[in-house]
């Protein structure tokens, strides 16, 4: 594949995904300039891989996984985690991050409904949060989400199902269950 074809394909992909990636980052990183930096770095990394001819199975998943790592790095630099937060981490999860914690202080304006939805998603246990967000808002498939989160598609499906069940409970659509949800 020559460089002009690669450039065209990358540009089309960029056009299709940049807004979604911006949302994903903006809801987790407060400062708009830093959001722009992360988005730019993430696409730059993908562009480098494309030019080098690296094998990319699911470009969308790779993009989000890369952005997720950059957000985690940003959190590490921004605020060191306490021992309590570290011990509360779920197995397999790199670091917790909380959208509501930061988007309120950014210049991003959200409607009341959007804020409520984000508040509900953020209130979910950390292992369900990302899976539910990517499924509901970005309409990603379990296979793609599994690539982003570094787990199996089956595991993602379980997380989504349980996360949605909890959301329904929070919205009062179903009565709350007695048994506490087990972590996936």
């Amino acid at each position: 594949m020559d460089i002009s074809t690669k450039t065209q394909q990358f540009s089309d992909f960029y056009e299709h995904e940049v807004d979604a990636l911006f949302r994903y980052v903006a809801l987790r990183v407060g400062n708009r300039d830093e959001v722009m930096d992360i988005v730019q770095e993430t696409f730059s990394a993908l562009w480098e891989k494309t030019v080098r001819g690296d094998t990319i199975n699911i470009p969308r998943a790779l993009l989000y996984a890369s952005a997720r790592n950059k957000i985690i790095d940003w959190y590490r630099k921004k605020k060191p985690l306490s021992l309590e937060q570290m011990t509360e981490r779920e197995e397999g999860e790199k670091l917790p991050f909380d959208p509501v914690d930061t988007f309120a202080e950014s210049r991003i304006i959200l409607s009341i409904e959007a804020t409520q939805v984000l508040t509900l998603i953020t209130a979910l246990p950390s292992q369900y949060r990302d899976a539910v967000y990517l499924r509901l808002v970005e309409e990603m498939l379990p296979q793609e989400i599994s690539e982003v989160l570094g787990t199996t598609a089956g595991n993602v499906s379980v997380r989504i199902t349980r996360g949605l069940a909890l959301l329904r409970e929070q919205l009062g659509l179903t009565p709350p269950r007695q048994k506490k949800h087990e972590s996936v």
Partner: protein
Amino acid sequence: MNQFKKGIEDIRALRLSDEEKRNIHAHIMSLPLPSPYTHTLLIVFSRSWASYSIASILIIVLVGGSAAVAAEQSVPGDILYPIKIKITEPARDLLIQEPANYARWESEKASRRLEEATTLAERNELTPERSRDIEERFQEHAREAAEAFTALALANGTSTAYDVEKEFDGSLAEHERSLHTVSKRNEEKTEKDTSSLEKKIKEVRSKFREDESRSRSERDRKEGERDTDVSDHNGSPRQERDSVKKVEEEDEGNESGPDTRKQEETENNLKNAVKKN
């Protein structure tokens, strides 16, 4: 529920401005194109975690390895000496598990300090500070060696510990001699610096000798007690050996007696037969 759907739609409406999109795209496209061979030729500059790990290990092995080898030959005052004292030797401490090897290594460390002192004395660079530093380290290693000998005696028996201790004592004696020879050759200042260290070596050696004689007398006492216990029932080993020998001699005597008598009888019978004939 409609509010929930509206909330999701509102989140999806969160977008970059056209200008922001164009700026980011233009910036990415202005980046220099990476070489397709970058990741194979220059693995160090690749951004993946595995590449960083491999590169770090290579650097540690190549740079650290050669530094560690060079550090082994260093003496107090050299740049690499702290690596020898604080990295390579403690690393060997961790690697050695077997009690005998550990005891040998502890005594070798003490010998190493003396070698360093000899080298510095030969170069006429054994300052009072360095001498004091070496003395302290030597005493520390000698103490650790004594502990290691005790541990070895408990683990492998006193004879093994005694052998290792003897090797160490021989090494100390050798270092004492060479240090004394060097200091005699050098000027008076240096001699003054080494005399203190020589005194320390003598102290350590005499202490080891005391320990050794104490442990030997202890061992003899224990063996004596064991022998006494055994003799109450069956006699001492020596008595036992004597009695066994006596029995064997008696057996031999008994075995030879009948044969001789039989032969005499045969001869007499033959004589009588000849007389009759």
